[in-house]
């Protein structure tokens, strides 16, 4: 653990975060977008654990548990919403879910 510098973990998590953001902005399938959001949350978790380990206190690791719990609750609600959409319109493509215009 101590052999690997902290920057490596941070760069990896920053890269994961960027992949998540790019995915949310580019992909059109609601479920894939949701997966990209989970990727963003997990990159934040990796950052928290890294800092926690290198700073030598446990706050970050405790925080990760809360983030995971919230992510699970969000997944439950989010997938339910996507199912409700699919029942009404038989699609989960975000571009086709656009009855509102300005």
């Amino acid at each position, binding site marked *: 653990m101590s052999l690997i510098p902290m920057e490596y973990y941070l760069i990896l998590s920053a890269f994961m975060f960027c992949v998540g953001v790019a995915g949310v902005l580019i992909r059109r399938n609601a479920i894939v977008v949701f997966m990209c959001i989970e990727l963003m949350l997990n990159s934040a978790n990796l950052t928290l654990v890294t800092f926690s380990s290198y700073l030598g206190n446990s706050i970050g690791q405790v925080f990760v548990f809360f983030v995971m719990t919230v992510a699970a609750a969000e997944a439950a609600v989010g997938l339910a919403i996507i199912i*409700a959409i699919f029942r009404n319109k038989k699609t989960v493509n975000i571009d086709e879910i656009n009855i509102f215009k300005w």
Partner: protein
Amino acid sequence: MPLNNYEYFLLMPQIIIGVGIVLSVLIEIYTKKSEQILPWFSIAIFFATAFYSVFNINQNFVLFGGMIEVGGKPAIFNFIFNIGAALVVLSSIDYLKKYGTYFGEYYILIQSSVLGMMVMSGAKDILMIFMGLELMSICFYVLAGINRKKFSANEASLKYFLLGAFTTGFIVYGIALIYGATGTTSIQNLVENFVGYSSNIIFILGMILFLIGFSFKIATVPFHMWVPDVYQGSATTVTSLMSTTGKAAAFSVLIIILSAVFSFNAPNVFSPYFATISALSMLFGSIVAISQNNLKRMLAYSSIAHAGYMAIGLAAGNIFSVAGIIFYLAAYAFMNIGAFTVISIVEGENDSRTDLNSFAGLNAKSPILAATMALFMFALAGIPPLAGFFGKYYVFIAAIQSKLTWLAILGVLSSVISVYFYIRVVVFMYFKDATEDFKINISPYSLIAVVITALLILVFGILPDTLMNVITSVLH
């Protein structure tokens, strides 16, 4: 620091609501008449919480090892959240009946979301901010799509969920970086060492991600794209809850996280950021609202503009601006809930009759609805002596004190623009003949909610000192 046993008594507002949620679930499961019981039970819970908070406003303590603050500023926010939610529940009783979409969960979710807001407004640790925010947001995602058979509600709910969860990603990553730079998530530590951290690049980056996340939640340009769709697609009563109390909760967090700037005169390094988003939101919201024909959508753009006015206070960053923001939030909560309740009374089935044309000749159909709606529109436009005017006044004064005169001038300009679309509603109600023929069934409960909000706006407008003195006494 009070004794340990005593801490639970001080935390009574949160405990009342928490117990209320559990009891509501039991009522919903075990009684056949939950539709009659639950709304009144929720209202009782909200009033108990609101008045307990206000009567113990001087008992200002930080509890549980620096996790949550009670009394003082959080008490005022608790009052706004709970009275707002009680009014929304009051106006929902007949609204839900009208559409035959009663779910007991509706009231339980409103209670849970209010608990989340109360946790947010009292947070003294970033962990509490995060938990409160998510409790509130997840309840709102469900509430937005509570009418699951209707596609517009589904769409609103999905858009709100995807962008809200996206925002959560930003906030969590920002929190992770703040934690990395400071080594703790305590806000006390953040406040004490704010000046030192302000030169740390990781801290600045984390704060910017955090602030971007909350700019989504308060609905400011350029993070506003979900607002019109979500506000239009959700049930009208839900929209009134999201647009007022939800916004107030997000602002309470911004005030907490920047309390070093507000209360201890640390240099406001984030002032340019807030000045930019507030200028953009005020102008964008006011200008785009002019072209809207749907009243819910118009109020959504007006809500963006109002978020901009409040963000002026964040850019100004002095103790007076905090008082201004809190006053503005209280005034905005009541006038917006009132306006949305009037819309929910007039609204017909399947989102019909929310257009401006449906409000033509409203005075002939129902003079009291037309009169109160006109009052809300004047208050939102910021015409004295109504509450909305003093909200703007206090915030603009704070901006001038902080040498942000250009921002105050922009604010006044966009208020002038916004008068056009607010007054247009009044013109339609009073000076045009009805084009659509329908009868309005005024539900007594909704009417009570409308009258209460109208009275509150008048009281806060004619005697702004009553509220302002309480707020300033708490802040010092």
